[in-house]
């Protein structure tokens, strides 16, 4: 875990150097120290002048780019990655299924449906549709998780039941999303399509604060259940025999996981595979004990998503920014196939 922490700190130190505008390390350090000291910094915060497309970039502009744009983007990616990784590990433990991830119950479809619904907000009398997008996405995601839980209460709430209920609801919401985007102008539908792919561009300190608070609270609660997750790996009957209220634990963990996932996707869209691969990577390093696995997964998930965001913002060049979900998919999909292959061959994953 120490190695993961050191790697994460190194990535966080280097990520401010990555972006469409190359700010020299000396200026990055100067600007950060200038803000952190809370006042005037001795000397010039931007000792190395730069220019972009022949235009000299002022220190004020560099300060804005770094402090108001780039750092919130990096931190949002960090906290979203941490949250999704912890939820992914939790879901894999709850369902004893290595292919489980945070979007298991169609939560991503619920968030996407909420986001697509904002296309019609202006028609409902609210002028600023983008004000409501994070809120609607959060409510859509949270609502989906709650619906799945409620629907499963009426019948035997086995893991398979929950999974199938989530698949059905996810499919229904997918159809509704297609309908909503069809009914709007192509430019609006295109905006929602790109939101689906996930992006941290435009992150603000307000969003960072909200996500940090929610992810910290939710992830802490999940990590406190590490012992219970270890018990669940022994099977429902054995865990119950050892005194665990299996159904209650499962519902509680699903509810908390839905909350963390909903908060994560509300501000950045659907970022896939982070929750799937992070627990698997750290499990090979840390072992299967969930009391250590979940915190390690949080570190790796944050590291992975910050790196993915750095790559998304620099790989195209010329100011082009890829959706971060494209990067995580290119890495995650082969990994997913590898997991599947090992399961089919009967090997431990």
């Amino acid at each position: 875990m120490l190695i993961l922490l050191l790697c994460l700190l190194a990535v966080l130190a280097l990520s401010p150097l990555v972006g469409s505008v190359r700010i020299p390390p000396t200026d990055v350090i100067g600007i950060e120290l200038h803000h952190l000291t809370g006042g005037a910094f001795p000397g010039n915060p931007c000792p190395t002048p730069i220019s972009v497309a022949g235009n000299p970039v002022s220190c004020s502009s560099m300060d804005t780019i770094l402090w108001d744009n780039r750092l919130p983007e990096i931190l949002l990616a960090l906290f979203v990655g941490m949250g999704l990784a912890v939820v992914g590990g939790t879901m894999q433990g709850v369902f004893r299924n290595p292919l489980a991830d945070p979007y298991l119950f169609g939560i991503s479809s619920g968030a996407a449906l909420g986001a697509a619904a904002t296309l019609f907000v202006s028609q409902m009398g609210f002028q600023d549709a983008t004000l409501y997008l994070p809120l609607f996405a959060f409510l859509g995601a949270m609502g989906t998780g709650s619906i799945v839980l409620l629907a499963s209460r009426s019948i035997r709430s086995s893991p398979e039941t929950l999974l199938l209920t989530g698949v059905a609801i996810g499919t229904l919401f997918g159809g509704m999303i297609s309908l909503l985007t069809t009914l709007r102008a192509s430019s609006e539908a295109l905006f929602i399509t790109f939101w689906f792919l996930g992006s941290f561009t435009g992150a603000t300190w307000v969003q960072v604060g909200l996500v940090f608070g929610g992810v910290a609270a939710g992830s802490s609660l999940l990590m406190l259940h590490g012992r219970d997750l270890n018990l669940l790996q022994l099977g429902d009957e054995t865990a119950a025999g050892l005194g665990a209220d299996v159904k209650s634990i499962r519902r509680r963990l699903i509810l908390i996981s839905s909350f963390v996932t909903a908060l994560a996707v509300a501000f950045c869209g659907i970022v896939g595979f982070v929750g799937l691969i992070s627990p698997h990577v750290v499990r090979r390093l840390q072992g299967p004990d969930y009391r250590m696995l979940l915190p390690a997964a949080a570190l790796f998930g944050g590291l992975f998503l910050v790196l993915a965001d750095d790559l998304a913002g620099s790989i195209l060049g010329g100011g082009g920014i890829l959706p971060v979900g494209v990067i995580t998919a290119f890495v995650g999909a082969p990994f997913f196939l590898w997991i599947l292959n090992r399961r089919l061959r009967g090997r431990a994953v």
Partner: protein
Amino acid sequence: MSFKDSTSSSVHTIPPAFVIVIVVIVAALSVGATATYYQLKNQAPQGSINVIDDAGRNVSVSAPPQRIVVLSPSAMDILYRLGLRSHVVATDCGLASYGGRLADYTPAQIRLWNLSDLACITWQPSLDIQSIVALNPDLVVGASGVNIASLDTISTADHIPSLYLNPATLVGIFYDVEIVGKLTQTASQASDIVTSMTQSLDSVESSLINATAPTVLVTYYADSSGYWTFGAGTFGNDMIVQAKAVSISSNNTLGEPEISGSYVLAANPDDIIVGTGFGLNVSAYGAGQDWSSLGAVQAGHVYGIDVTILTEPDPSMVFGVTTLAQLLHPNISPS
């Protein structure tokens, strides 16, 4: 592996209601924080020049902008006509793989507005906010397709005023010219442009007062599944009405519907107007569904028009109504 008896863990005393309370609190904080965030962006300092843009956002500047970043050809058209080309420091561009600036502007527009030496700002899939900030602009003008949330970030986090132009109708274009003129203290020039646009439309109307209205399909893109056109309440339909014609999709409530070849075949329009440019020419529409079976095609009543006139809501579109009318009423020749 050994475990402690989990029933002795204090974790099990956390009730689900506690989790629900946390959810409600965070949701309430989210609403409050984002509402405050956007209220701040709408506050106008005293003595500022204020306008309300097409997204209902309050945009204010303390002085006429001298460094403007433009994120759409329609906004560029307005600024150029107002004599503000020298104040533009950058325009939108597609990705280099899409052709860069040629993905968003025609060669004629690039020549007319002298854009070759301006900085490029990519806006899809995501707006390159950092490159915009690096140019130290005092106004950013975006249009339909640009993410309003990104414009809000530029305004609130980066403290750079941003204006969003997205007129739904021809009348909306008049409003856009006026608010840009107000922000840039070129109200007199803006008034002249509005007057010219009004006179242009009046001239077309008076010329066609006794003309019969043909049925028409106006399309800006076609593929094997159908034709993209304009529905009711759009600037495209407004153009068609002003040019004294009836669109076969005028009753369609979708803003920019794709209609099938079968529908066009059944509607049998007298004329077909197709948008050309950005790699499209009249013959390219031959890939459209049932194209060769359409009566207007067989009669040779297919006419090409610069696609930017159809799809970019700006003064050029308003003046382009004359061109459209001339194509649809060749015997009358509106001036």
